[in-house]
């Protein structure tokens, strides 16, 4: 399927739905691209779990500070007006409902808003959860940015997650390469189709009933 949004376009589309002045936590992968697509006239303040509010872009290689990283353990910078704090304060921001938007990648997301993005549940896997379970329970709005299907073509938007949950009923909106999809009381519903993509194509790539956009 050549139609649809690129990774960059998915991030840009997600950025459109983040209000000006939001406190934002970005997961690893496509969500990180959002910083490059902040809409004109808006400003987001980035939080990273390991104790920084006001995170800036990566530094030049020769300006790295080994003690300034993000939760993904990548080197970052601090913008004017930044603040450092310890881990209990950092997760107070998360669990206390102070962060406005969290944008995550995922393995699966279900029609009821369940998300599974931390473990395949394989018996030989080393389980590792990090801050994902805190984020999905604490942040006001959970966005997911993800390819609509896996590399092998399996749907990532499903009726029920087969992988262990990160949190139940927490996702509000999903941005894929094919569409913007809301989690509604009636299940998935298309909000917007990517250019050149039909509702039928989305329906076929989705592992659960999905409603067309309301006219």
């Amino acid at each position: 399927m050549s139609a649809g949004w690129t990774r960059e376009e998915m991030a840009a589309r997600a950025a459109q739905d983040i209000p000006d002045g939001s406190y934002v936590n970005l997961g690893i992968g496509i969500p990180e691209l959002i910083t490059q697509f902040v809409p004109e006239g808006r400003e987001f303040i980035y939080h990273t779990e390991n104790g920084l509010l006001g995170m800036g872009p990566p530094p030049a290689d020769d300006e790295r500070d080994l003690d300034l990283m993000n939760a993904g353990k990548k080197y970052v910078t601090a913008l004017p007006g930044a603040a450092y704090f310890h881990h209990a304060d950092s997760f107070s921001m998360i669990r206390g409902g102070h962060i406005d938007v969290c944008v995550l990648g995922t393995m699966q997301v279900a029609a009821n808003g369940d998300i599974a993005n931390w473990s395949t549940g394989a018996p030989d896997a080393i389980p590792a959860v990090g801050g994902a379970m805190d984020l999905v329970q604490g942040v006001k709005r959970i966005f997911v940015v993800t390819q609509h299907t896996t590399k092998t073509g399996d749907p990532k938007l499903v009726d029920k997650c087969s992988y262990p949950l990160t949190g139940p009923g927490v996702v509000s909106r999903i941005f894929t390469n094919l569409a913007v999809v809301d989690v509604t009381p009636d299940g998935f519903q298309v909000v917007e189709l990517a250019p050149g993509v039909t509702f039928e194509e989305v329906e076929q790539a989705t592992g659960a009933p999905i409603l067309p956009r309301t006219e």
Partner: protein
Amino acid sequence: MINKKCPSAAEAVADVPDGAVVMVGGFGASGSPIELIHALIDQGAKDLTLINNNTGNGEVGLAALIANGQVSKMICSFPRSSQSKVFPALYRAGKIELELVPQGTLAERIRAAGAGIPAFYTPTTVGTVLAEGKETREFDGRTYVMEPWLKADFALIKCEVADPLGNLTFNKTARNFSPIMCMAATTTVVQTRKLVAAGDIDPEHVVTPGIFVNRIVDVPSPVHEDTLIAAGRSYP
């Protein structure tokens, strides 16, 4: 650029509704946001639940707000002091409700609200009348009381330095309850003695990160409760 500055104390407290739960920073006179409290007196919201360690002194600030009949309930640890007359009189007359909370439990309940912790266990009050009716539980052979979080609709806070993003520092023991109250209120209103540009506060020295602050009022020469009382002042 994000700028949380609010033109005046009056505008900053204009939307405090009747019946609101309001946290007020300060421990005794130290850290009490007098200008914001007086703005709330002018604004006139009634039936307020007030959260502060004390109940004010003299006839200014917190005591004046109570004297003005705007407060129906007080949540505090120490409602009397040598100079507090307003609250004791109303309390004895049955005109104001009191929820007495030990100081450390008060602080921890406020912090819990800010941190998304609905309840926790503490040894404080075990075996006393203040634990009566409360759920207790043993951990490792010791008894603890369960205490719920304590949230507010508004927090009125005084700080020393603020930037437009809401990053704050405080002055000495005027810090007290203020940083945790900033975390626990839906809308946190701060009066600052000094307003600086974003980046002027070293990120290592920020006490309250801006995420916990909604409105900033520039009050470069704040009055101090102790000074007002020594001068025999009252408000309004």
